């Protein structure tokens, strides 16, 4: 069996570990445009901030690829996929045959048609190379504007701030992290950012990157009429699935590559995982693109197992984010902003503005389906368990969750022993 994996992000690492669970010997080739072995992509903000050095970037020890018997073709971009011949071709002129192919190509940063975006001083923030560039930029830059107040934008802003750059964030939505937070959580975080000196401009958008006659950036015009002086602009509006290879090969692509429970695409020999894939969601019972790290790893892992012949259905991804802002930790999991008027929804919100803590729980049809924690996050995992295992909740248990006291001893009878104290040989998840 010959496996080819395109891309070497975390989905790729998950796939390698998944394949080796079921097939110890099959040939694995990883082809990737980036020329470094897999690194912790979210760590680029820690690197830019100066919190860690380059030696901390690799996601697995260098011995990993040998140990898992993986061949690497780094610095090589796949330019076409021939699904009939079962081959991929690269920009350095090689053609590689496969029995099973995994598309783990991730996402590409979305850059809107913003006047003034072309030219020097405008950056993305999704790769190690971007972070290295920004380390240099920060040395000679007093003020910067980050366009986009999502996860990547906030991380870029924080890191540049730590490098001594005065940063402003511009976000179209009424709050930062609009998908993962509600207004109360967004408010607490915006307050924290303001305290450390990061400006947040929500509910408006950048209309032009202003340059002088020599083409040097002087600032950014906003729709609300204000002008933010800046020498550098980071565009972090989001990533779009890098699904072109699949599309051109006639494989079904919606927002991302559409995959079934085995992570197989419309072509049974081609699988997809991670930010490029539109895979099953645990709660919504539908396929979605949820570009987050844990989903990418898990999808890769399940794709790997299934490519290697194990019949192992993927239970679905769960949207989750954990981000700390200068000592203020936040966690957001599952459905946090249910559609207004959605049937069966019940909300509980506990806000303590003085101590900057907030807990929001979202119940649907008597089950926990989402939560947001700000400040006190220590019980996050237990709440996640209630969502993941879809326990029906009685009034007593619900009251305990609402009061901030979830416990494993509130699990339904029998489930504790199944997970923690099973008798005899059985599959332990």
């Amino acid at each position, binding site marked *: 069996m010959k496996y080819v994996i395109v891309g070497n992000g975390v989905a790729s690492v998950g796939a390698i*570990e998944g394949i080796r669970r079921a097939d110890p010997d099959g040939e694995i080739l990883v082809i990737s445009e980036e020329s470094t072995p897999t690194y*912790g992509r979210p760590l680029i903000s820690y690197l830019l901030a100066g919190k860690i050095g380059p030696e901390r970037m690799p996601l697995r020890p260098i011995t990993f690829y040998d140990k898992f018997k993986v061949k690497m073709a780094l610095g090589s971009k796949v330019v076409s996929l021939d699904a009939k011949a079962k081959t991929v071709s690269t920009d350095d002129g090689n053609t590689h045959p496969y029995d099973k192919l995994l598309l783990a190509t991730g996402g590409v940063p979305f850059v809107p048609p913003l006047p003034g975006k072309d030219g020097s001083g405008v950056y993305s923030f999704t790769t190690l190379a971007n972070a290295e560039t920004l380390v240099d930029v920060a040395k000679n830059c007093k003020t910067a504007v980050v366009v986009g107040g999502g996860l990547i934008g906030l991380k870029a802003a924080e890191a540049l701030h730590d490098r001594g750059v005065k940063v402003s964030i511009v976000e179209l939505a009424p709050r930062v992290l609009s998908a993962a937070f509600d207004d109360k959580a967004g408010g607490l975080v915006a307050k924290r950012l303001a305290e450390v000196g990061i400006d947040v401009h929500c509910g408006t958008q950048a209309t032009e990157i202003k340059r002088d006659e020599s083409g040097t950036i002087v600032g950014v015009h906003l729709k609300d009429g204000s002008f933010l002086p800046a020498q550098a602009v980071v565009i972090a509006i989001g990533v779009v699935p890098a699904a072109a290879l699949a599309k051109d090969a006639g494989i079904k692509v919606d927002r991302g590559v559409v995959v079934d429970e085995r992570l197989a695409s419309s072509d049974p020999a081609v699988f997809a995982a991670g930010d490029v894939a539109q895979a099953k969601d645990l709660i919504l019972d539908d396929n979605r693109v949820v570009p987050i790290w844990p989903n990418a*790893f898990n999808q890769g892992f399940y794709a790997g197992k299934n490519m290697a012949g194990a019949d192992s259905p993927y239970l679905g991804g769960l949207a989750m984010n954990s*981000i700390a802002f200068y000592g203020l930790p936040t966690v957001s999991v599952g459905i946090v902003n249910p559609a207004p008027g959605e049937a069966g929804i019940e909300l509980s919100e506990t806000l303590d503005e003085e101590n900057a803590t907030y807990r929001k729980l979202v119940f649907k049809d008597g089950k926990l389906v989402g939560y947001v924690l700000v400040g006190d*996050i220590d019980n996050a995992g237990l709440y996640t368990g209630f969502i993941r*295992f879809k326990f029906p909740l009685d009034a007593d248990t619900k009251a305990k969750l609402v009061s901030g006291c*979830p416990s494993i001893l509130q699990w339904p009878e029998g489930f504790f022993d199944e997970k*923690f*104290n099973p008798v005899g040989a059985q599959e332990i*998840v």
Partner: protein
Amino acid sequence: MKKIYPNKAVCIGCHLCEVACVTAHSKSKDIILAHNVEKAQEGLAPRRNVAQEGPVCVALSCRHCEEPMCVAACISGALTKNPETGRCEYNEEQCVGCWSCLMACPFGSIRRHPVKEKIIKCDLCAGRDMPACVEACPNAGLIYEDRGKD
């Protein structure tokens, strides 16, 4: 693989497992120094914790899952599944304190280090034959054995 199985039918909530855990993970390996000095100075804390609901209690820690959610979530490579031993291993050096694993583990087995921007988690007492908590339990409330294929 061998794992620690907690039995809530016999746990009396005496917290001796926590005491043994703290001592085993101390620098001094001395029960008094560990609790009266290292706890305060270095934030030494137990990796196993007794959960209590009314009269029922049980001592819980990482269950070294076959498919660990914490490993999937770890952005730094600090958490990995050892394919040979089956253990879910933690390398403190690598950890950046992002709390992704704490959020992802549906068993609540990951805690924040009391003073460092790091996590703490059961390591099955790496280097010892028998985990300290299992040895310390007066009621056989913790059993260390191999019950399945992993």
